[in-house]
């Protein structure tokens, strides 16, 4: 296995872990971590791609993606805090008033 395919496989595994935690977890914090994990996997691929093609564009994109991820985390934490502030238990599916 070439290093690049190794990187790719790692990225796919990390990505799947992130997606799995989105499906599996009920705690909003774990969900946010899952989403961040998916972003990290993408960043890994971007860096790998820069190695393959020898371009700087994907490295720049990786940095920008970090910033986007940070912005996302800030807003996500704020929203999660606001939603679950008044609840004793922190379970995602307790907030399911809007339905049907």
């Amino acid at each position: 296995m070439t290093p690049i395919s190794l990187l790719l496989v790692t990225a796919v595994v990390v990505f799947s872990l992130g997606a799995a935690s989105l499906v599996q977890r009920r705690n909003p914090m774990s969900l946010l971590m899952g989403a961040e994990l998916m972003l990290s996997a993408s960043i890994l691929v971007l860096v790998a791609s820069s190695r393959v093609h020898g371009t700087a564009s994907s490295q720049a994109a990786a940095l920008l993606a970090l910033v986007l991820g940070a912005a996302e985390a800030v807003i996500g934490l704020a929203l999660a805090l606001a939603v679950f502030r008044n609840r004793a238990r922190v379970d995602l599916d307790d907030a399911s008033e809007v339905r049907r």
Partner: protein
Amino acid sequence: MTGLVGWAWALPLPFIVLGILGLPRRGGAVSFLGPLGVFALALVGLSQLGETSLAGPAVPDVRIDGFLPFLPDGAFVTHPDGLAVSMLAVVGLVSTCIYLYALGYMEQDENRHRFFAFLDVFVASMCLLVLAGNITTLLIGWAGVGLASFLLISFWWERPGTLSAGAEALAANAIGDAALLLAIVALPAGIYSFDDLAIAARQGSLVQHNLIAFLLIVAAFAKSAQGPLYFWLPSAMAGPTPVSALLHSATMVAAGVYLGVRVSPVLAVSPEVSRMVLWVGLFTMLFGGVMSLRQDNLKKGLAFSSVSQLGMMFVALGIGAPFAAFFHLVTHAAFKALLFTSAGGVIHGLHGEERISHMGGLRKALPGPHLLFLIGALSLIGLPIVTAGAASKDLILESALHHDRWLGIVMIAAAGLTGAYAGRLYFATFYGSRGHGSHGDGDHAVHAPSGWLVWPLVPLALGALGFGFLEVPGGLLSRALAGVVDAPAASSLGTGVVTSLGLIAGAIGLAGFFAGRLLVPSKSTPSPAARPAWVQALVDVFDFLAEQTLAFHTGRTSQYLLATLVTTALAVGFVLTRA
């Protein structure tokens, strides 16, 4: 002046604006000018039809090219040919009478402005439908009359059942609209108008003509309440009586037949579809007659009669006699509108009572409606010589006999059925004694109709008696329609007003009429449910599916995430396995 004929559909529009502004103070008092103008323009068009000048035909098209640039057939065209102008005259005449009638009928209603505005929407859309030169333009009017029909059926929206009746009409119409939409997109390039369609069909160069004919006929079935799609028309009687008279018997439901006549060249080259039209029409004709015999509600009885008569027109279309179908459409518009409006006079006199078991003996109390109803009923059963219904029905029977002996015999026998339900409704309403369901003492409870409920109907009565002469002596109608829909060869018509066939059918009808007296219900029986089982089943299925769809939306974010990610995974998998 003749250039305006193609714009006739715009005439009712100013009155919609007036209605929105709440003018004039007596709602709708001037609205009749719209349909009257339509009628006048139609007469102008009729008088100019044959003549052509150097500049082209005397009654020019209105044409806006590139109106819908994304369609091959994307022009906005109104094409006032003989067929369109004749139909326009019918629509103009009947609606003028009914506007005046509605002024009396809706006098007490505080929402008159809205009522007349909706009627104006209807007349404008109907005129556009009639004048349309291609399917796209037709579809605008087609959907417009469907919308107006819904709004008018649900006009008394606070009464139970009106909204669901309106929804039924919308649902049935939706099937037709979908078929028409598909027909538009399925039309091959190069077919820019109905004329092109007819030419292509006659030359045999129309690709997919079976598909196109089928789609168009499904649309016609939905609009004209044929076959399995009949169910919405009886329910539509929940609307005010002028609406039942104008939309749901005389003009709108006839739009399906009109479309069938328009595209009869395509039917002619699609024998399978024609056969389907014949059988569905025949079945509907008999079924409507039998169902009418079982109704306790006067308006629903008449509604099933419309279903049956429209079925007869479709039989004529199916056997390739579009001229006869159109002729019957014209006379039917007159006598059925007359029947409904005079029945409305009775209902108005009885303070909204619609059950015939609660009527009876009204010929003294309501002489005007009585006489008018009788004229309409006699025209419906086709009393020879003196009524218009006889002339047009005669033509259909004759074509049916030519087509197939047994078909003709069945249809002649069906004249007895027509007579029976007409007689049953007539005798139950005007003879005998008031049913025991009636409260109040005799004629005191009946208030005499105002002149508005009688005099505007006189033109309709004259039409119900005299429209037969449109064809028989000079062939006025066949001359107007020449080149669009050709009348059958002169030999079969030459016998004049009295044909032996007509006499036989008339006699059978009259016998049925008097036999109908025996069928008068003695006590109030609940009418059988108008909604057929298959429609109910379909409604249940849709309700079930809707409930399941809603149950899927649990509000739980974990399930939403699962659905999102699983769908994505499946999509990626699908794409990769097919790569």
